[in-house]
């Protein structure tokens, strides 16, 4: 089990390198957008990975509220942290692509806005965890995660209605995708998911170690008080 993580990390590095090669050299050039379209192979896998991690966070939060297990709480914390990082990648790569293709950095389109609100909710989740230092932090955080999950469909509906009333400029998607492009996309998604798993696993071990150290220190100071 101790070996599994370094091995997985090595395999992930190889997979990421292969996915990079596929995305930059192998995938066909998009006819109208040109090379800038290749950011798609980073943007979309990051988005899927971020949403997957936020879903893991919700499940772990529910498990924590039911079972009160410290492991579920650590998983919730870790998935939220890594999810925010991936979500940030999505929000940064999106405008870089949109500027040359749409001619604007940002539009209040349904997917963009929902992703931004999701990012805001999870940043506030991390702020709560940082600002609350009692032993009840996991409980508060788990409750907030549930509120966030309830909020996302409402955000989606509100913007869906708002934007269908006021149509936006060009919005890509909906069309068909070249099978070679899909192939590259799926390889990148696999690579990014493995990368997220490695980072989460590492961070999880760090968090468990940190908690063990905290516990040992407080135990030691308690022992020190006694004569």
């Amino acid at each position, binding site marked *: 089990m101790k070996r599994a993580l370094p091995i997985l990390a090595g395999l992930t590095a190889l997979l990421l390198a292969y996915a990079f090669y596929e995305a930059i050299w192998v995938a066909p050039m998009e006819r109208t957008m040109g090379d800038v379209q290749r950011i798609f192979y980073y943007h979309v896998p990051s988005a899927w990975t971020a949403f997957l991690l936020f879903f893991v966070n919700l499940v772990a939060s529910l498990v924590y*509220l039911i079972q009160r297990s410290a492991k579920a709480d650590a998983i919730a914390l870790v998935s939220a942290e890594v999810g925010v990082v991936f979500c940030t990648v999505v929000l940064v790569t999106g405008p870089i692509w949109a500027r040359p293709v749409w001619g604007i950095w940002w539009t209040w389109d349904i997917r963009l806005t929902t992703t931004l*609100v999701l990012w*805001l*909710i999870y*940043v*506030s989740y991390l*702020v*709560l965890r940082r*600002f*609350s*230092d*009692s032993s*009840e*932090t996991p*409980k*508060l955080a788990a*409750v*907030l995660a*549930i*509120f*966030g999950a*309830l*909020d996302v469909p*409402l*955000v989606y*509906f*509100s*913007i869906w*209605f*708002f934007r269908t009333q006021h149509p936006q400029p060009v919005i890509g998607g909906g069309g068909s995708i070249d099978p070679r492009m899909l192939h590259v996309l799926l390889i990148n998604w696999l690579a990014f998911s493995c990368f997220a798993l490695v980072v989460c696993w590492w961070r999880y071990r760090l968090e468990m170690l940190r908690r063990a150290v905290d516990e040992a220190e407080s135990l030691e100071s308690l022992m020190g008080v006694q004569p």
Partner: protein
Amino acid sequence: MSSLRSITFATLAKDIRLEWRSRDAINSMLFFSLLVVVIFSFSFDPNAEESREIAGGLIWVAFLFAAVVALNQTWARELRNQVLDAYRVSPAPANALFLAKALGNFILVSLLEAVMAPLFMIFYNLRALGPAWQLVPVAILGTWALVVNGTFFAAMSLRTRSREIMLPLLLFPISIPAVQSMVEATRIILAGDGSARFWIILLLTYDVVFTTACLALFETILQAE
């Protein structure tokens, strides 16, 4: 059920009596939202047609900020003399306390709106071109959407450092769909631009979803120490 109702109303009556004697929250909210309205009017300088488009946004943002002032004081009162601890060990249902606090905030913010909305209409020369009576359900549902989550998150932020700043950080992201619905509904009614029905239904959904969530999870938050 009757104990839930009687405890809710006893707590609510106590809060209203305390507020009536000090008038801390309502005065600071009124003055605060007056300041927001005046500062907005300097930063936009709209004419009547433009203001109809943006007034919905301005008025609700002013109420949202003012509501935070009241919400922050909701639980602070109970921390003095360990009232909240006493409540925790008492057999009274936790939801009675939550409902009383949420209703108290609802009354406070509604009072604020009743005073500020006419003033707002005067300052920005507004007149509803759509069915004005629809502003009433929008105001009721919107206010409840703000205070139900606000009361809940205020209880949550009691357990954190610098809780006064924590409340808006938790409340605003979750309130985005509610604020959007209130603003859009108000804009549509003021500009007489189609039907606000979708937004009112969305607000109602938001209220039902989050009231249920608050009632289901408040016990967990109250017992968190």
